[in-house]
C-alpha cells in the first residue's frame, strides 16, 4: 500500500497511514463528459483539481448550464415555499430510479411555476372580490339598519309636526325649522355614501369630514362586532360601518377624497327599499358563488402541489446533482480542438480499477466512439490525506483532525487515541456507578442509531450522537478505573476480598489515633476499601494519584517519541532517527524515566526516601552523598551518568542535524547538474496541460533558517519534557476533584437526608442527589475530563511526533453532497 513516501519499514496497519494517493489525469471525449463525471460522482473517490482557477465563474465553459441549474433551484425553492404555505409536506426521499432528463425537468418546472403563479394570481383576485362582497354585505346590513331607524324617526317627526300644525299651541317648537320643513320647494336632494372605515381612523375621519364640509353633513358610524378582512391588504381589521348624508356635488367630491385618504372602502347603497332587498339578495348569491369558486381553485392548487410533493425530493436531488456535475465540468480544461476535456485529480491508489471501470461504463452508455484515457501523473505536490474510517473509528479520527489533518502518510495518532483517549478520560472519571450511567445513555444511542441517524437532532444531541462510540469507550474504561479506585457513587465495596488492614488488638482502641495495621496480603485489585472515609485517605490518594499521573504521562510521552521513530523509518529519514529520536528518548528517560523508576523502586522497597529531594539535588549537587535518600546502591553513579546523558543529548539534538542537512543538500545539488535529462520528460507532460510547480525542487537552502528551526525544536522539547510531565498532573487533580465531589454529594445530601428519619426529607434528598449527580458529575465532570483528555492528546502526546499540516481528501461525491445538505 505504501508507495508514495517510501516506507515498508513495518507491516501496514489500518488507519496508521493515510491511503496512498496518486495524481491521475483523465482525458474524456466531450460527448461522454457529462455521464463520466456523473459516474465518478457516484463512485466518490476522486478529488478534481480546478484547472481553470484563473478564469472567473462567468468565463467558464459551462457557465450557462450552471445558470440554468440555479434557475431551477430557484423554482424548486418557490415550489417548496408554496408547499409549506399550503402545509403540504414532501414525502421523504424515496429515490425510485425513474430516470428523469435534466431538460425535461427544466421544462416541467417552468410549466409548474407558471401554472402555480397563475392559479395564485387568480385566487388572489377572487379572494379580493370575495372580501369586497363580504364588506358590501355588512355595509348593506348596517346601513339598512340606519335607514330603517332614520325612516322611523322621520315618520315620528312628521307626525309630531302634523300634530303641532293642527294644535299650533306648542311654544317650544322652533319657528324657523318649521318653516323650512314646510317649504317643499326649498327641499334639497340629499345624497348618501356608505362604506367601511378602519376603527382606529374613525375619529379622525369624522373630524376631518366635519371640518371639510363645515358641518354640512350627517355622519353615522357603527362598529362592526367581528373583524373584517380588508380586501386590499388581506388582513383582519376592526372596522366601522358609516353612512354619510350630504348635499351638493362639491361636498360629495370632498367626501370622496377624504374617504380615499382614510382607506375607507365605499359601497353603493340603494335608497329604495326594494332595491336594497334586491342588492342584499344579489350580494349573498354572489358570495356563495365566489366561495365555491375559491374553494375549487384552492383544491386545484392543492392537487398540483400534492403531485409536486411526491416527486419534489427527487427533482431537488436531480437539480443539485446536475449543478454539482457542471461545477466539476467547469474545473476541467477544454482541449484546443474542443473535442475532449482534460481532468486532473487525486484518487486513492486502490480506486484505480473502480475509476477505470466507471470510465468504461460511461463510454459505453453514452455511445461515444472514443474511450476516455486514464493515466497516472508524477508529481512532487503533497497529496491529500485520506483515512478510510468506519463508524467506530470516525469519531476518534475527528478528534485528531480537529487539531490538524495529518501530513500525507505520516503516523496517525488516531490509532492509539482510540484506546488512550478514553483511558485517560477514565483516569479522571473513575467511578463505576457513573460509568454505568454513561454506558446506559450511550447504549441507548448505539442501539437506536439507525433510527436516530435519519432524524434531525438538536445541536448538543447531534454532537453526543456523533461521539457515541467515544462515549461508549469512555464509559467502559471508567467502569474499569472505577473498580480500581473502588468507587461506586463514591461508596467502596469489598468486591475482591477482605481489606488488608485490621485493628492492632481486639478492643480497637487506637484505630482512631495510631491507625490500623496491615494483617493480610495487599488488597488484590484496586484501592483497599478501608481507606475510604479514613483520616489518612487524602494523603494516601494524593500520593498514589500524583505518582500514577507521572507514570502514565511518561509512558504516553514515550509512546509519542516512539511514533516519531516509526515516522522517520517510514519516510526513510535516518537523520531523524539518529539526531532526533534517540537523543529525545535519552533525554526524557534519563530525567523522567528515572523518576518513574524511582517511584516504582520506592513502592517495592517501602523506602522513605524523599523523591523531590533526590530529583532536585540530582541537578544542584550531583556529587553529594544521598544519605537516607538512597534507594539502591550505586545510585549516585547512575544519577551522574544519567545527568551526563541528558546534558549530552541536548547538543546532540541541536547541532548535527542542520549540518548534515546542509551537506545533503550540497550533495544533491552537485548531482543535479549532471541529471538534466529527466527534465525533458517533464516538459512533454507540461505540454499536455499540466501546470506543476517545480519550484520545490530548486529550493534555496538557508542554513541559518534550518538552524533556528532546529533550535526552537530543541528548546521546545527540552522545556516541554518538564512542562508536559507536570501537565499530566491534571490527571491527579481532576480525578481527585471527581471523587471528592461525589463523596460530598453522597455524604452531605443522601446520608444527611437519610439521617433525618423522615420520608419527606429522604425523597427531597434523593431528588437533590440524583440531579446533582446527573448535572454536576455526569454532565459537567464528563465535559471537563473530556477536555483535559483532549488536551493531553493534542499537546502532550502529539507534539512529540505529529506535524498535522496536511489537507483532507475531499472527493467529488454525490453522497457527500447530500449529507452536507442534511
Amino acid at each position, binding site marked *: 500500500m505504501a508507495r508514495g513516501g517510501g516506507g515498508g519499514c513495518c507491516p501496514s496497519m489500518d488507519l496508521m497511514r493515510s491511503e496512498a494517493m496518486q495524481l491521475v489525469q483523465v482525458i474524456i471525449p466531450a460527448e461522454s463528459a457529462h455521464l463520466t463525471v456523473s459516474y465518478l460522482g457516484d463512485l466518490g473517490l476522486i478529488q478534481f483539481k480546478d484547472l481553470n482557477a484563473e478564469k472567473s465563474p462567468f468565463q467558464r465553459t459551462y457557465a450557462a448550464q450552471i445558470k440554468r441549474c440555479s434557475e431551477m433551484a430557484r423554482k424548486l425553492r418557490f415550489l417548496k415555499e408554496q408547499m409549506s404555505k399550503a402545509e403540504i409536506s414532501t414525502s421523504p426521499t424515496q429515490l425510485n430510479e425513474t430516470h428523469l432528463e435534466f431538460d425535461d425537468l427544466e421544462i416541467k418546472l417552468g410549466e409548474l411555476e407558471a401554472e402555480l403563479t397563475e392559479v395564485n394570481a387568480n385566487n388572489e383576485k377572487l379572494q379580493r372580490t370575495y372580501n369586497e362582497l363580504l364588506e358590501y354585505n355588512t355595509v348593506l346590513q348596517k346601513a339598512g339598519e340606519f335607514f330603517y331607524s332614520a325612516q322611523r324617526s322621520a315618520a315620528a317627526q312628521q307626525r309630531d309636526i302634523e300634530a303641532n300644525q293642527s294644535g299650533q299651541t306648542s311654544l317650544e317648537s322652533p319657528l324657523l325649522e318649521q318653516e323650512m320643513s314646510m317649504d317643499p320647494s326649498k327641499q334639497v336632494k340629499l345624497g348618501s355614501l356608505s362604506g367601511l372605515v378602519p376603527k382606529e381612523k374613525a375619529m379622525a375621519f369624522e373630524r376631518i369630514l366635519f371640518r371639510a364640509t363645515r358641518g354640512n353633513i350627517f355622519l353615522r358610524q357603527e362598529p362592526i362586532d367581528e373583524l373584517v378582512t380588508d380586501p386590499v391588504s388581506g388582513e383582519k381589521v376592526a372596522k366601522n360601518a358609516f353612512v354619510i348624508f350630504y348635499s351638493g356635488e362639491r361636498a360629495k367630491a370632498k367626501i370622496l377624497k377624504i374617504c380615499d385618504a382614510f382607506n375607507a372602502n365605499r359601497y353603493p347603497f340603494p335608497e329604495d327599499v326594494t332595491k336594497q332587498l334586491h342588492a342584499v339578495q344579489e350580494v349573498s348569491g354572489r358570495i356563495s358563488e365566489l366561495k365555491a369558486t375559491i374553494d375549487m381553485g384552492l383544491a386545484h392548487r392543492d392537487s398540483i402541489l400534492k403531485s409536486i410533493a411526491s416527486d419534489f425530493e427527487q427533482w431537488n436531488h436531480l437539480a443539485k446533482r446536475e449543478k454539482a456535475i457542471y461545477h466539476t465540468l467547469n474545473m476541467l480544461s477544454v482541449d484546443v480542438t474542443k473535442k475532449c476535456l482534460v481532468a486532473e485529480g487525486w484518487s486513492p491508489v486502490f480506486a484505480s480499477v473502480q475509476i477505470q471501470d466507471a470510465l468504461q461504463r460511461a463510454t459505453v452508455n453514452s455511445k461515444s466512439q472514443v474511450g476516455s484515457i486514464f493515466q497516472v501523473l508524477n508529481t512532487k505536490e503533497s497529496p491529500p490525506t485520506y483515512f478510510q474510517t468506519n463508524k467506530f473509528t470516525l469519531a476518534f479520527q475527528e478528534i485528531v483532525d480537529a487539531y490538524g489533518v495529518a501530513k500525507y502518510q505520516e503516523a496517525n495518532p488516531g490509532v492509539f487515541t482510540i484506546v488512550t483517549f478514553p483511558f485517560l478520560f477514565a483516569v479522571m472519571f473513575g467511578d463505576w456507578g457513573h460509568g454505568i450511567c454513561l454506558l446506559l445513555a450511550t447504549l441507548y444511542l448505539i442501539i437506536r442509531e439507525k433510527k436516530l441517524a435519519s432524524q434531525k437532532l438538536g445541536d448538543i444531541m447531534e454532537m453526543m450522537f456523533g461521539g457515541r462510540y467515544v462515549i461508549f469507550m469512555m464509559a467502559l*474504561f471508567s467502569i474499569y478505573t472505577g473498580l480500581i479506585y473502588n468507587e461506586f457513587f463514591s461508596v467502596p465495596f469489598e468486591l475482591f476480598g477482605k481489606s488488608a488492614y485490621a485493628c492492632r488488638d481486639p478492643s480497637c482502641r487506637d484505630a482512631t489515633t495510631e491507625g490500623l495495621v*496491615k494483617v493480610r496480603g495487599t488488597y488484590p485489585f484496586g484501592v*483497599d476499601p478501608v481507606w475510604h472515609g479514613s483520616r489518612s485517605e487524602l494523603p494516601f490518594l494524593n500520593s498514589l494519584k500524583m505518582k500514577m499521573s507521572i507514570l502514565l504521562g511518561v509512558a504516553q510521552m514515550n509512546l509519542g517519541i516512539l511514533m516519531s521513530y516509526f515516522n522517520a523509518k517510514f519516510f526513510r529519514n535516518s537523520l531523524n532517527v539518529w539526531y532526533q529520536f534517540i537523543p529525545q528518548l535519552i533525554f526524557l528517560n534519563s530525567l523522567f524515566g528515572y523518576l518513574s523508576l524511582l517511584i516504582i523502586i520506592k*513502592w517495592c522497597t517501602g523506602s522513605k526516601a524523599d523523591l523531590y529531594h533526590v530529583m532536585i539535588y540530582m541537578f544542584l549537587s550531583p556529587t553529594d552523598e544521598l544519605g537516607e535518600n538512597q534507594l539502591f546502591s550505586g545510585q549516585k553513579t547512575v544519577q551522574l551518568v544519567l545527568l551526563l546523558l541528558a546534558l549530552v543529548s541536548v547538543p546532540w539534538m541541536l547541532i548535527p542535524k542542520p549540518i548534515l542537512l546542509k551537506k545533503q543538500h550540497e550533495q544533491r545539488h552537485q548531482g543535479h547538474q549532471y541529471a538534466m535529462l529527466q527534465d525533458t520528460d517533464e516538459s512533454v507532460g507540461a505540454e499536455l496541460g499540466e501546470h506543476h510547480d517545480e519550484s520545490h525542487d530548486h529550493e534555496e537552502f538557508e542554513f541559518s533558517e534550518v538552524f533556528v528551526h532546529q533550535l526552537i525544536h530543541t528548546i521546545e522539547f527540552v522545556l516541554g519534557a518538564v512542562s508536559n510531565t507536570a501537565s499530566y498532573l491534571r490527571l491527579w487533580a481532576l480525578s481527585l476533584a471527581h471523587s471528592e465531589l461525589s463523596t460530598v454529594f453522597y455524604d452531605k445530601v443522601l446520608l444527611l437526608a437519610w439521617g433525618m428519619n423522615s420520608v419527606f426529607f429522604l425523597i427531597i434528598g434523593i431528588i437533590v442527589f440524583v440531579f446533582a449527580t446527573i448535572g454536576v458529575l455526569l454532565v459537567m465532570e464528563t465535559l471537563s475530563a473530556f477536555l483535559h483528555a483532549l488536551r493531553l492528546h493534542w499537546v502532550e502526546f502529539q507534539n512529540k511526533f505529529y506535524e498535522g499540516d496536511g489537507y483532507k481528501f475531499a472527493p467529488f461525491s454525490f453522497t457527500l453532497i447530500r449529507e452536507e445538505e442534511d
Partner: protein
Amino acid sequence: MGFWVTTVIFLLAGVVASLFTLLCCNRGPSTNLFHLTLVTTAVICCWMMYAIVYLAQMKPLINPIRSGE
C-alpha cells in the same frame, strides 16, 4: 492473589481478546494488526493502572486511621 498471578491473568485476557478479534473479525492482515494494536494498548493501559495501585499499597508508609467520633 499476588501481583504476578493477576499480571498473568491480564496477559491471558490480552491473548484471549487478540485471538477473539483475530477469529471473529478477520479482515486481512492490516486490519488484524490494527485490532491487535488496539487490544494490546488497552490491556497495557489497564494493567498499568492495576499495577500502579497494587504496588502503591504493597509497602504502605501511612496507615489508614479511622476518623474518630
